[in-house]
């Protein structure tokens, strides 16, 4: 015990304290950079992505490499800064990429493709929708969102462990047998 104390006191020179502070700040910055540019784990919230995610909240693994819409395809679940609420993140499935034609359904409607209005998703935007149509506020409410708002792609659920799995891209090209 006294040996550790003596060691600590011996190191508590101005230079040592400075180096320790520099290391601490550097570690904090490195962690923040990894958290913002590589990988984030976050608790989800809300019913809009049921049954893919539990409305009570799941811990999700988010790949931040895909921010600003880099490498996003139709069917990926993306996390984005909410266009009308500051500091709020949304998680929805990409329905339409720039240039695609999507049917503009009524907000909270349970039907798909019943509205007669088709819109073309503008350049640099994506059309997003929740999996739980009547309980989701998505592009049917606020329109296509700019890709610059996307800050990650949700790749897996990590907690609870019994339900840990990769998030599937459910919108695959149809395989038709003839």
């Amino acid at each position, binding site marked *: 015990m006294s040996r550790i104390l003596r060691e600590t006191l011996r190191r508590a020179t101005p230079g040592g304290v400075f180096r320790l502070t520099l290391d601490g*700040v550097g570690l904090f910055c490195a962690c*923040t950079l990894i958290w913002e540019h590589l990988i984030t784990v976050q608790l989800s919230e809300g019913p809009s992505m049921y049954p893919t995610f539990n409305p009570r909240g799941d811990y999700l693994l988010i790949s931040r490499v895909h921010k600003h819409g880099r490498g996003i395809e139709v069917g990926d679940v993306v996390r984005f800064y909410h266009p009308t609420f500051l*500091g709020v993140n949304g998680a929805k499935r990409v329905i339409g990429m720039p240039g695609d034609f999507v049917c503009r359904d009524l907000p909270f409607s349970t039907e798909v493709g019943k509205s007669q209005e088709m819109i073309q998703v503008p350049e*640099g935007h994506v059309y997003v929708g929740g999996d739980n149509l009547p309980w989701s506020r998505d592009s049917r409410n606020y329109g296509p969102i*700019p*890709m610059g708002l996307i800050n990650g792609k949700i790749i897996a659920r990590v907690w609870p462990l019994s339900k840990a799995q990769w998030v599937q891209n459910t919108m695959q090209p149809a395989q038709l047998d003839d």
Partner: protein
Amino acid sequence: MGCVMYERLRVLRILAPIVPIGLFFSEHVLGVMWVSGPSMTPYLNEDYEQMHTKRDMVLVNMWPWGGAGWPWERTRRLERGMVVTFRSPANPGHIAIKRVVGLPGDRITTRDPCMKPSQIVPFNHVWLEGDAADPKRSLDSNTYGPVSISLITGRVMAVMYPRFRMLKWTDWEQGLVEGDVERKLGDNYRHEVRDRVSKEAVKLERPVLS
């Protein structure tokens, strides 16, 4: 020999934390950017007519000013006249620089490429326009509509090169241009832009977040 190796490793060990600190600083505190294109002429890139390739170097405040002060917060105090950088809604890989012309609740009489004659800026959005007098020279809110505040990355504080000057957003309302002592740009700089804004035309309420 071994001593030199050891010495080098020791220097590297001391310098190692500098790298993440520097990256963090340029991303969240102060960044340096180069402005290209004519959209902010004559405010930035003053000599665009003579030198198309000359680019102004600007100092950008990336810290989320006006909030509790955490770098990951996105709360920002925005005022009319601030020159901000933001991710272009039309091209997510591009950082654009424009001036805040209208705040939420303002009614804007739009200019040329815009299809609507007037537009009310919605909650958490701002109206951004370039300073260029010719609408064709600027790709701004008149093309892609009001811009979400979540897209804004920073505020331009100063021009560092070729002529150093601090930028003060308060001068916008008075029609002043920083560093323009001889009033080459006129007494009431860009008053026609301010005339198209009717401030706080509607009272916006925060939409419910259920």
